[in-house]
């Protein structure tokens, strides 16, 4: 099993550009999550999904959108990128909300 994979690893955007961060898991997990980590801080939840077709907001959803059309994939969309979205983005998955969460390697995004 590859676990949780994310692409790209690094990206630099200009203010106002948009992009999609990709996340795929091959563990047949129902739950998937997007977190962001700002320098020197712990992770904060952006969006999560409890299954295909179902998504909900986390602590810091503004400026992002998600979709969950399949069990495996959970892309994160940034529209109109802003410098405040400079961060490291982690995708995670778990069987249920109280089970262990497994994290991908992260995407380092810089908005200039």
């Amino acid at each position, binding site marked *: 099993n590859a676990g949780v994979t994310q692409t790209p690893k690094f990206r630099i955007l200009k203010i106002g550009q948009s992009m999609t961060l990709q996340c795929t898991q091959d563990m047949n997990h129902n739950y998937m999550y997007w977190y962001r980590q700002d320098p020197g*801080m*712990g992770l904060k939840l952006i969006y*999560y999904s409890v299954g295909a077709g179902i998504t909900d907001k986390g602590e810091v959803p503004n400026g992002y959108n998600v979709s969950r059309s399949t069990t495996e994939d959970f892309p994160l969309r940034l529209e109109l990128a802003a410098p405040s979205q400079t961060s490291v983005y982690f995708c995670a998955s778990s069987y249920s909300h109280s089970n*262990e969460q497994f994290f991908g390697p*992260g995407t380092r995004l810089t908005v200039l």
Partner: protein
Amino acid sequence: GIQVEQSPPDLILQEGANSTLRCNFSDSVNNLQWFHQNPWGQLINLFYIPSGTKQNGRLSATTVATERYSLLYISSSQTTDSGVYFCAVVDQTGANNLFFGTGTRLTVIP
């Protein structure tokens, strides 16, 4: 949301020394995980431990759920143990995310 406090914030050890990291949380939890974030930013799962004690090599962890704390023990530390250690919890309110502490930054010097 639930509050997660980790101590100490920073720790410097000589190689071979032992250490204990602490995580206090403000409410009952369904899930507690310890992570190691290495200098390259990768998050590595250490323990899934909502209660009880687990051991994995030189690392062990204990969670006392009724007293709302967890401890991570590192024995015979190595330079590769350097990085930031995070404790994260899922509370029992139905929230679906891990709430992270601010971490303990460990530096092991040779």
